[in-house]
């Protein structure tokens, strides 16, 4: 171990070496690891007013986790149907958003990756990026304008006489899915695009030359090659939509909550921080498990993420 440190300081010199270690140490320990651990610790504490913290009543408990599974003591159902239901619905909806984005983005990523660059493609890429320089809230808000009861779509459909009364897109969660899908398009497109860009065009030509139809070319050549990009994109989109807060708050229907909204409520309206922390831990662990199993399933390494 000592040798490693000596090499490190030999390479960087003392000043720079110490600087690097301190900065990275601050980031990794103070910003990443300790807050997560303290949140974990906090989630096992009772909900106490500040003066009693650290007092005799401040003991460890699993009441908050119990609450998530079993509900409030004395509730009429034996499980916490509401919160668990929201949790499950959030994950399924996030999965749906992921699939939606994949289907929507794969063709464009392929087209961009295989075209030889040029002005048109540059314009397309610019058009792709520009919407993401605009605030997340405003993007969600735009969908509210479009899908609202007196929004553009309803107005157009009504004028054309296709429907008799406005459709409640917000209650049907269509606005939410459209908004979430919109929010993470870039995160799906760029990983896939980066991989496909490096695919040798001759492979596709060879397959075509051997008489493969287009769908087989994709199934046997392009998709297997693009797998790291696809799974990296899917992982990010899934995680971010499961953890999204803004879009569900703005576009979610009155009857459907997102799990993050429940956490938010425990912090802001409920004022029960330990319970919110416990819920956040559950969300974090679930996401980690899902990501790890996705990576195992598709045989992708962590190093492929973020390329």
């Amino acid at each position, binding site marked *: 171990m000592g040798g490693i440190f000596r090499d490190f300081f030999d*390479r*960087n*010199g003392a000043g720079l070496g110490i600087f*690097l*270690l301190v900065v*990275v140490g601050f*980031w*990794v320990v103070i*910003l*990443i690891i*300790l*807050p*997560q651990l*303290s*949140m974990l610790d906090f989630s096992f504490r009772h909900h106490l007013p*500040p003066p009693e913290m650290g007092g005799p009543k401040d003991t460890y408990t699993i009441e908050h986790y119990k609450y998530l599974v079993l509900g409030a003591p004395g509730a009429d159902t034996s499980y916490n149907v509401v919160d668990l239901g929201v949790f499950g619905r959030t994950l399924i909806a996030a999965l749906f958003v992921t699939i939606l984005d994949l289907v*929507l983005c794969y*063709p464009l990523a392929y*087209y961009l990756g295989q075209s030889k660059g040029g002005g048109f493609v540059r314009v*397309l890429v610019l*058009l792709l990026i*520009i*919407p993401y*320089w*605009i*605030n*997340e*809230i*405003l*993007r969600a*808000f735009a*969908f*509210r*304008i*479009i899908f609202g*009861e*007196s*929004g*553009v779509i309803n107005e157009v459909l009504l*004028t054309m006489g296709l429907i008799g009364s406005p459709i409640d897109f917000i*209650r049907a969660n269509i606005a939410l899915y459209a908004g979430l899908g*919109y929010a993470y398009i870039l995160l799906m497109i760029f990983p896939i695009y980066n991989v496909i860009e490096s695919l040798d065009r001759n492979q596709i030509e060879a397959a075509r030359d051997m008489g493969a139809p287009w769908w087989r070319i994709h199934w046997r050549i392009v998709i297997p090659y693009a797998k790291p990009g696809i799974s990296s994109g899917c992982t*990010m989109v899934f*995680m971010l939509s499961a*953890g999204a*807060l*803004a879009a569900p708050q703005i576009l979610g229907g*009155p009857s459907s909550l997102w799990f993050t909204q429940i956490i*938010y409520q425990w*912090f802001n309206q409920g004022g029960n*921080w330990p319970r919110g*922390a416990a819920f*956040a831990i559950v969300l*974090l662990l679930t*996401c980690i498990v899902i*990501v790890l199993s996705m990576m195992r399933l598709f045989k992708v*390494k*962590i190093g492929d993420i*973020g*390329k």
Partner: protein
Amino acid sequence: MKSESYLLKFFLVAYLVVFFGYLLGPLFVMSITAFNSPGFPRMTPWECLTFEWFDVLAEDDRIIEGIKNSFIIGIGTVILSVIMGLAGALLLTQIWPKLRATYYTVVIAPILIPGVVLGISTLVFWDRINIMLGFTSDSLFNNGIFLTILGQSTFIASYCMLVFIARLQRFDTGLTEAALDLGATNVQAFRKILLPFMKPAIGSAAVLAFLASFENYNTTTFTFGKFPTLTIELAQKVRYGINPSISALAFIIIVLTLIGALAYEIYRRRQQLALANGAPLSAVSGGFQLPRIFRGNPAAVIMVLLALGGFSTIWFAQTYSPTECKLDVREQKRIIQNQRILEIQQQRQLQQQQKLLQGPDIFGGKKAPAAPGNTTRPQNPGKGSFGNIFAPKNLDKTGPKD
């Protein structure tokens, strides 16, 4: 064979249209609503062209305050995350190979951790530190700006690090060795060789960090304390009733973004041109020519058109007054409403006649029409809150459908 390729081309074009319609349509619609006079942002029906929402925006102190906070936090986050991201990337290239995968997992994790969780953990951690150290609740560790910068930097530094790693992969470590060999100290080699090489990446990481910080909601919503950022203010407004001044802000941001993108494109083109033509561009003599920057540069032309459009719009906005049009619309609505009131009254009378006076008229024929129509009347914007009348279920259902 031929027809198949036409079909393919058709599908491609159709797909591109749908895709970019999905991508850009919402921004377009939102921009349009900034110029329509109804109190709730909407594109249809078109009532009156107005610029009043920009005035409303300029007078909204909370938005202005939010922008200020966003800038302070954004600058802090840029500094912190660029430094941490750069150090993280440099360490990654040097770390003991056995530790590398673990290290990479740890520093990339903040990207995958839900932003909500990052916000909560930052809040909880520093709150506990504060209690442990016995500070009061208004100490630095409970300060919204401090917490938000730390919370955002946790994951924005990972984004920056990815930018730096991509750049570092193209760095030839031989250059550093060459510098050392020529007598440079480690610090000199870092400052004179590696840093200049990383400069473009530092620039793009800083821009990325600033944008990410500016638009962050999930983390900030837990940490902002007494210093709401623009995004937080926007979210509050969007959730609890809004008027088109938000659209006006969106329009301004979209225009700024477009200008930024075009400027960048022009800069790139010029660089490429300079590179392609060798060192100095030799001037071609004779005849009228567009200034050099415009030649073969549609982006520049578009930018100038945009600027001209902007100026003329501002001039137009100064002179144009939508009052008359609004009065017209109000008058029209009044007529329609009166018609409706009449219709309803007639219906009531009909019903009452059919029921043959079965009981006293508790529903008060005159009160009934007052509720609908209420929300469609153009309001004086910017005066106080709208309460919850714009929540989805309360949205006007009786607006004119013509």
